């Protein structure tokens, strides 16, 4: 009856209004209500990912700039989803095909003077962060990106929530910044109730008389900071949290083991387990409360809230935060459920990669085993290759060592229900690693190594090796910020001008992206190392690293010289090693397609200079036999060559000029 009354009255008034509205020609189209997910299944090996911190990318809507403090990088800066919509051209000019966006969920506004602009302080798993826009704006952004051929990867956090509760250590019913610690389980004598040190028993309450059992957890009541019990309501359950306090072992693992009575030298396994227990069950530093992801009901609730966003916002993949802080078996259950849901809503190639912030290659790979994640951030490569070799001049043999270990450490079999190749085959995780030089948790490349030529060389490898290159926003503008938050500069404050697309580094990225797109070998090809060296001094091959990419019978040879001052060769005659081998036959003439290369230069594969064998007419892509030919050439200091047979290069008529 009430509805009928309203319908009748509304009908009369709104009919008249609609008539007048149409007469006035006002643009008042309502928000679409028939939102549907799309299926943009692509072979993820072909993607160029751009990590986009929404708050720092572009400010497109002034209304949501609440609490913005321009220039204070620990606070909101004003970027939003409208800003992404307004600057899609910038992304397409750069050659980006996928964007990884900051978490979209509503966050705790502020803690200790810092804001939740990054999105990792979840307060409500199902609501949007109003600083970025509303759900309609999120959908609009995804639609606009999709319309421009760009996939959307959403950053999600399953390990913890924001700073939503405190430990009432002194049982006075209010959160205290500092209370007396025991001094027995930790060298810290005073600790705060927001983020106290780890205690395996659970954070302990303390009075003047000593320990008094587990400290009660209490929800913080600060609605002005959106700091209170998490939502949806089932997460407002203290049984769902470990309540053991913050991880304290990082950077002092051996010392922590000794304090705990474990000799790390004599019993490293126990020490490792001790550290891992903290990592998995401790609060993430900053007061981020650790969820009990071992509990079935917590797992299901996390699956439910994460699947919501696939449907609600038409997301194409997840970048998953703090993966190593969650039990391994969680990822089997989580990934399986996510894949099933994605398929159910028509998304066939939903992609999941995780952040395992660790240099231990085997640990990274452990999350890519069957039924787990599709990929991880290749942190070990970031540390051992892009930092050690490209920034600090370590030998290129380090690259070969790491890449060789990959075969043992990472998943070799793709998931049939997971991401598929362009010909419908599951893609093995070790072909899908996400290659990055820097990100929001590490100093920018140019902070530690301000030589732009080295950056360009690193980018050249990033875009020619297998896996997916991931650009951290702003590196293309030569940002050089140090550790968080200095490495999170507003993109619009580039020294080259806002959203400049003409500077040398932007154009290098763009050209490498186009080169990559033009050569399927670089996207889908097998990868075989043909030269690496221990030498970094004045030797003939110092700094050289070369590898071949092979796909459907075609070959691309990539040669890089990481030496900072000297031209080097793909040969070490003086040391008795001869020249570099190749699976291309003698007589093959190569052209260098590297942006900026001399278009007239030619390089010929010879039968001399190395030990060759008689190769078959069609050399398999995964050929691992003797050399078919030899290739001796020089590469300038901090230079690179991308060599393809001239007959392969000719159809690419736009190269290199168009690049």
């Amino acid at each position, binding site marked *: 009856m009430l509805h009928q009354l309203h319908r009748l009255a509304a009908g*009369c008034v709104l009919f*008249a209004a609609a008539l007048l509205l149409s007469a006035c020609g006002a643009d*008042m189209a*309502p*928000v679409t209500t028939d939102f549907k997910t799309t299926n943009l299944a692509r072979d993820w090996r072909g993607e160029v990912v751009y990590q986009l911190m929404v708050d720092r990318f572009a*400010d497109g809507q002034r*209304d949501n700039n609440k609490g913005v403090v321009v220039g204070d990088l620990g606070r909101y800066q004003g970027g939003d989803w409208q800003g992404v919509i307004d600057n899609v051209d910038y992304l397409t000019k750069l050659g980006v095909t996928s964007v990884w966006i900051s978490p979209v969920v509503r966050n705790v506004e502020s803690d200790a003077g810092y804001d939740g602009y990054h999105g990792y302080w979840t307060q409500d798993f199902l*609501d949007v962060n109003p600083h970025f826009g509303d759900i309609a704006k999120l959908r609009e952004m995804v639609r606009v990106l999709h319309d421009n051929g760009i996939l959307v990867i959403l950053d999600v956090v399953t390990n913890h929530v924001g700073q939503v509760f405190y430990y009432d250590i002194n049982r006075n019913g209010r959160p205290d910044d500092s209370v007396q610690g025991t001094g027995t389980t930790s060298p810290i004598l005073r600790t705060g109730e927001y983020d106290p040190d780890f205690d395996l028993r659970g954070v302990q309450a303390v009075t003047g008389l000593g320990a008094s059992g587990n400290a009660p957890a209490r929800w913080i009541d600060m609605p002005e900071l959106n700091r209170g019990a998490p939502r949806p309501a089932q997460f407002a359950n203290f049984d769902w949290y470990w309540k053991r306090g913050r991880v304290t072992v990082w950077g002092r693992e051996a010392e922590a083991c000794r304090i705990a009575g474990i000799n790390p030298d004599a019993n490293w396994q126990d020490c490792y387990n001790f550290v891992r227990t903290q990592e998995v069950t401790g609060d993430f530093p900053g007061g981020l409360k650790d969820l009990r992801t071992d509990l079935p009901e917590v797992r299901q609730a996390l699956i439910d809230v994460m699947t919501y966003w696939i449907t609600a916002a038409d997301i194409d993949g997840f970048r998953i935060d703090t993966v190593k802080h969650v039990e391994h078996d969680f990822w089997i259950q989580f990934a399986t459920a996510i894949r099933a849901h994605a398929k159910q809503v028509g998304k066939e190639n939903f992609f999941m990669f995780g952040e395992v912030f660790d240099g231990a290659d085997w640990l990274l790979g452990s999350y890519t085993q069957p039924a787990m994640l599709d990929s991880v951030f290749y942190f070990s490569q970031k540390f051992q290759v892009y930092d050690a070799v490209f920034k600090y001049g370590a030998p290129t043999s380090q690259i070969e060592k790491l890449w060789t270990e990959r075969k043992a450490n990472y998943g070799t079999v793709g998931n049939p229900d997971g991401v598929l190749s362009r010909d419908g085959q599951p893609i093995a995780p070790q072909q899908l690693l996400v290659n990055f030089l820097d990100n929001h948790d590490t100093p920018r490349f140019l902070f530690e190594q301000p030589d732009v030529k080295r950056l360009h060389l690193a980018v050249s490898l990033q875009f020619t090796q297998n896996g997916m290159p991931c650009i951290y926003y702003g590196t293309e503008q030569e940002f050089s910020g140090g550790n968080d938050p200095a490495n999170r500069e507003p993109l619009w404050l580039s020294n080259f001008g806002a959203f400049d697309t003409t500077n040398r580094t932007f154009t290098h990225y763009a050209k490498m992206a186009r080169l990559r797109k033009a050569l399927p070998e670089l996207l889908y090809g097998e990868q075989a190392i043909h030269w690496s060296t221990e030498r970094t001094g004045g030797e003939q091959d110092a700094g050289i690293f070369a590898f071949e990419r092979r796909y459907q019978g075609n070959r691309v040879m990539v040669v890089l010289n990481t030496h900072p001052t000297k031209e080097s060769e793909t040969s070490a005659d003086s040391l008795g090693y001869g020249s570099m081998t190749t699976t291309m036959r003698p007589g093959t003439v190569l052209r260098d397609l590297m942006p900026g290369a001399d278009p007239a230069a030619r390089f010929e594969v010879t039968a001399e200079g190395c030990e060759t064998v008689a190769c078959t007419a069609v050399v398999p892509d995964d050929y691992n036999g003797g050399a078919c030919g030899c290739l001796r050439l020089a590469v300038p200091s901090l230079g690179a060559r991308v060599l393809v047979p001239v007959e392969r290069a000719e159809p690419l008529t736009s190269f290199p000029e168009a690049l």
Partner: protein
Amino acid sequence: MKPSLATLIPLLALLAPRLQAEELPPTEPAAEEASAPTGFVFGSYGRVTASSDGAGGSGKQLAVVAHPPRLEEQPYLELDLSYHVAEPEFGRFRVVTTLAVSDAMFHSDGDFDGKIALRNAFVEGSDLGVADLSVWVGSRMLRGDDIYLLDFWPLDNLNTVGAGASWGAAGKTRISGHLGLNQVKNAYQYQEILVADPEFGTDPVILMDRVRLIGSLRAEQPVEVGGLSGKLVGYGEVHRLGEGVAEDVEKVRQLMPSEIGTTLGVEAAVWGFGERGFANLFLRQATGIAALGELATPTSGLAQDGSVTDTTSTRVAMSAGFGAGRFDLIAGAYVDWFSDADTVNYDGDDSYEGTISLRPSYRVAGGYKQAFELSYQGHRSNGLSPRTDTFLVPAILKAAVIPTLSAGTGPFARPELRLIYEVSVLNDGAQEQYPAEDVRRRGAIHHYLGIGAEWWFNSSTYP
């Protein structure tokens, strides 16, 4: 024992003959112009209501639009004090001051305080050597015709400090214009900050200082159509604001650009049909800063450079009345389309809304009237509700029974005493505009029980 409606209505009816009649349809010339007074004149507009929600709580105004029906309004009082001088050799002058009080009554909340504003403080001179010419200087409410049921002046309603002139007389062509200034005391127009004193402590300095210059022009032409009286009104405003620098709470400074805005509108009015018939139709289009109102500060919907240049407001409104014997009907309605200055088409600032209200009454005996009111209000925004992340179209349907004692006949006879029972029906959207903890969220049906009084005489608001 609480008095019931049944016991109160006869009681009020007994009081009716003692009250004085004062009936003025809002489109007719003001009484003061018909016979110019001299000396002191006191006038007033006021309303006071005691109300309950019928469930132990206070009576509340439930609204989803900017101009809802006025029945549930809070108490408000204007005291008009004017002094009139007529010197044949020098012309006529009047000094007008209007003190306004808007707050809960002291006897209601025990707070010996109130919100007080001086809404008129001007001197007007007439017949200063030129017939039908008058000029004024001071602080003044400049208003045309209103929609009584909505307490709303849909075409022209300026609060300004400045000066103006008018040529014409009641019942003749009249052209009036004014130029005024205002400066809202917030960082949008005025801001003081502290800087270090050269020796010790701090000194205040004015960082932001920009005034809004407002000009208005109004032309009114009486017309006679088919034996009916009427008028046509053309109206326009120009608002101008210079640029300035503001500092936010985080000490970040930004340039606020200069603004300009305009309003254009027309009104057609006719009266004299039936026994007490009148009708007014208003059309109005405002752009830029003029679309926000002269004392408003934009807080959302700004363009990226902080301007509101692309803001538009388009409004259609009407008020009408009709009487026949003991029966009267008055009505009011408006629809307003608003679009903000940012480039986002799907946000809460891009919207349209409207209200329609009807109040029929029947004079039973003497000054006792039985009135009813039926209204509907709705708001449609292009944005999602931030509370629900869904698309809401809040609307409220209201029906009221209003036993009334008036000092005269007709719908505008005042003073007036009235009992009010009103039921409001909120749709889902109207309910969901309130947080879950809000008592107004408790359901679709809301009640309002009130007893109130309203009056005006010699008033600048209702002349």
